[in-house]
């Protein structure tokens, strides 16, 4: 892995140039093509941008992220690069504009190396639903990298870039971060603009960074954060609160019943992290996160309902790939352009919103959402942050859960509640299991406590 905050010193003192680093990354992408992390590499573009960054370093005009080599999940618009969302239906689509988050990073000096593979329209937890082939875990190529932002996690884990952007609707940044051994951060809802992020479930979608270290993730996040006139749901960057010392910090931890389903190695890592924090002076407070049986169902009802509407625009009429038909272009395009998992979720979402079922599913899920948010508000009156596993298992074998969508969906158990409540959550790597696969733990905090969450996670 290559850290931008470390490289920046080298760029500043001239011991390394951005162009050299870019060439190394391009070579690494080519050498590790079997990982299938990228859907598009913009070699010419990134070389030109790197040369310009080197010029700025020489001129003493380097911006905060000057020469930060960035990979962008292929569901975010970057003008000049194709965007497929890993779907056939957007084959050949060229966006007309650049996503706000990406634009801010470019304006701060980041250079975009390419677009990363993902689960189709971010629907999946293993990167197996991509129309352009599965992404492989660099720690064990027979295993999945997690999803849906698998390509972005792998790009950082395999040292193919400094940092990458992912999107997290139910855990799609944190889960692959855990599986690949990198930092993955999902900020408070609205703190990073969604403008330019292809919507899966608008009220649950978040843009966030992958990076080798907490400091790198923080650097990228700081630049992206802040209100955006193009996103009405965006909010100003929360004012930096003085970070309470770990000594005296109240850390909520899950009671045993919540983690008995986890792999033993993950339970052990969790216990070790708790012990570490305790020794640093933190007060460990067992907490109950209620309604846990409702997290995943609530998430899937809300996410699929919104997705069924958000994905209606892909009809082959105005852009993307059109599958011609004598009868109905829209039906033909959507039947052949969308993969199985996407069609499954669109149908489920259509069903939960349809008249006669709306109240039983969608309306109840909205009520459950409020209960879950209230639950978190209540817990955060007792503790400053919560420590919990990111995933119940480490990276699983490719194909292991493909035949059982519900088992796949349940792998989001520890991550979805933060999306439902819109709270900040970060996954931090804490070593490996006995098979040598990375383990990630998660720190969650109250809304707008993004800085505190990152600071605590840095100590785990």
């Amino acid at each position, binding site marked *: 892995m290559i850290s931008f905050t470390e490289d920046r010193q080298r760029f500043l003192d001239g011991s390394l140039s951005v162009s050299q680093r870019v060439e190394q990354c391009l070579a690494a992408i080519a050498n590790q093509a079997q990982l299938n992390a990228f859907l598009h590499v913009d070699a010419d573009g990134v070389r030109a941008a790197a040369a310009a960054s080197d010029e700025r370093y020489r001129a003493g005009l380097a911006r905060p992220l000057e020469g930060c080599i960035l990979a962008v999940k292929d569901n975010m618009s970057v003008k000049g690069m194709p965007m497929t969302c890993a779907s056939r239906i957007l084959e050949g689509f060229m966006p*007309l504009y650049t996503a706000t988050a990406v634009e801010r990073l470019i304006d701060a000096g980041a250079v975009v190396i390419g677009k990363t593979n993902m689960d189709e329209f971010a629907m999946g937890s293993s990167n197996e639903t991509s129309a352009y082939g599965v992404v492989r875990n660099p720690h064990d190529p027979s295993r999945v990298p997690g999803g849906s932002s698998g390509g972005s996690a792998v790009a950082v884990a395999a040292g193919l870039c400094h940092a990458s952007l992912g999107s997290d609707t139910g855990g799609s940044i944190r889960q692959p971060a855990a599986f690949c051994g990198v930092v993955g951060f999902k900020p408070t809802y609205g703190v990073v603009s969604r403008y330019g992020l292809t919507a899966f479930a608008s*009220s649950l979608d978040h843009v966030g960074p992958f990076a080798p270290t907490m400091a790198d993730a923080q650097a990228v996040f700081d630049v992206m954060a802040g209100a955006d006139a*193009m996103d009405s749901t965006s909010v100003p960057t929360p004012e930096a609160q003085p970070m309470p010392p770990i000594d005296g910090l109240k850390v909520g931890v899950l009671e045993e019943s919540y983690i008995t389903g986890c792999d033993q190695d993950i339970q052990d890592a969790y216990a070790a992290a708790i012990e570490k924090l305790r020794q640093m002076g933190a007060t460990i407070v067992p907490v109950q996160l209620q309604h846990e049986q409702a997290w995943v169902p609530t998430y899937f009802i809300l996410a699929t309902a919104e997705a069924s509407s958000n994905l209606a625009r892909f009809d082959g*009429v105005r852009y993307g790939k059109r599958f011609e038909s004598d009868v109905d272009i829209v039906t033909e395009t959507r039947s052949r352009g969308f993969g199985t998992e996407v069609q499954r979720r669109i149908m489920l979402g259509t069903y939960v919103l349809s*008249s006669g079922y709306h109240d039983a599913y969608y309306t109840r899920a909205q009520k459950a959402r409020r209960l879950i948010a209230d639950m978190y508000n209540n817990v955060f009156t007792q503790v400053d942050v919560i420590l919990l596993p990111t995933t119940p298992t480490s990276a699983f074998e490719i194909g292991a859960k493909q035949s059982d969508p519900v088992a796949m969906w349940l792998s989001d158990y520890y991550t979805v509640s933060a999306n439902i409540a819109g709270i900040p959550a970060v996954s931090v790597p804490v070593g490996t299991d006995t098979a040598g696969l990375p383990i990630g733990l998660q720190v969650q905090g109250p809304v707008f406590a993004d800085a505190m969450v990152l600071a605590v996670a840095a100590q785990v």
Partner: protein
Amino acid sequence: MQTTYEAIIGLEVHAQLKTSSKAFCACSTTYGAMPNVNVCPVCLGHPGTLPVLNRNLVEWIVKMGLATNCHIRERSSFSRKNYFYSDLPKGYQISQFADPICYGGSVEIETEEGPKHIGITRIHMEEDSGKSIHDLDIDTLVDLNRAGVPLIEIVSEPDIRTAREAYLYLQHIRQILVYLDICDGNLEEGSLRCDANISIRPVGQTTFGTKTEVKNLNSFRNVEKAIQFEIARQIALVEGGAAVQQVTMLWDASRQETRVMRSKEQAHDYRYFAEPDLVHVVVDESWKQRLHSALPELGLAKRRRFVSQFGLPAYDAAVLTDDAEVAAWYEASCAHLNAQGPEAYKAVSNWIMTDVMRIMGQNKVSISNAGLSPEQLASLVDVVQDGTISSKSAKDVFAAMLGTTKTASELVQELGLRQESDEGLLRQLVEDVLRDNPDNLEKYRGGKSNLLGFFVGQVIKRSGGSANPALVTSIMKEALEQPTM
């Protein structure tokens, strides 16, 4: 015994607002541009784009709500109405569903039987779709210039009982929209669209019958005709022992009939849910108050004021206030009159309702482009009122005035139309005529009093037509009454 039926009618009126930009993006709303020019990634529904609410839309709908006596909801929200259509870029329309911004209002219409209140159930914001063009031999063509243009939907209570009332209600709603300067109010061009919900029931029954919805009422004449047709169709069905089916009907203007567009089973399930890309719309009390105090005087109030302030007949007041611009022009004309008074006010009204409106109709122009100014018309009324010219000559002055900036006095001078009102001069002419017609004078004094007209005519003739007839008549009478001369 013959059953008599009454119709229960509610109207849904869609008004396209004339904001300069679209409801949720910065694209222009200019009508008549080349197809697919006024578009951007947002209104094309490109992936990743998000709507940003046009503040003018909120301000304008609140004005409409206040003008129709609605409650204004302090916090309202948007919903998505989901359906597939090639001219609907996102696959859903952003609309308001559960909590419309305006609700519970009413308007008063003036029917032939007197004033009547029609309730307003709700007024909500939404975005227009694009336009599909099917009637070409090639594929369907789609123009997305209109996609995202702001609409408000005004839903009435089922308080309307006749096609005539529906017509009057629609006229009234149109007038308010135009008075507020928020909509062109053009049914034919589609800036105003109307659907009607219609059911019938025997008079005396309190429950409602099954309703049908009639769409495509794209002119005021069609609104009245289509509703009449649909009421008659429903009565004939029921009289024939059949039941009215809950269907959506389309008015076919060329065949002058309604026909079934889709049945209840084919009705869309729009799967409404809260629009997650927009936050609540908040209209606080101070904003509402500011908009309320800035409301212009509306048509009905203006009409009533014209009757009381200018002494106009109700008919004149209605004609003059139908269009706010005409009403303002009328008031400006009256303000420029030298001689203020009901007689002059009525004269101004007469000129506008006949000659000025004739020009507006012929040239299809607004009153500001009719070819004369309120000052000019006032000057014309003044010279007739003070006897400078006859009302016959006034027509010539009016014609000469058009397209110029000349006042009536200037034109009277130029055209030599000044009426001779010099008493000494006229008295001389009277004496001349009497002297030259001793026979007729004899006959007059012998009792043939109808010879007065002859004498007056002779005087006017000798004056070359310029003598003031009223003044001549009074001098002549006086002269004739004198015993000797």
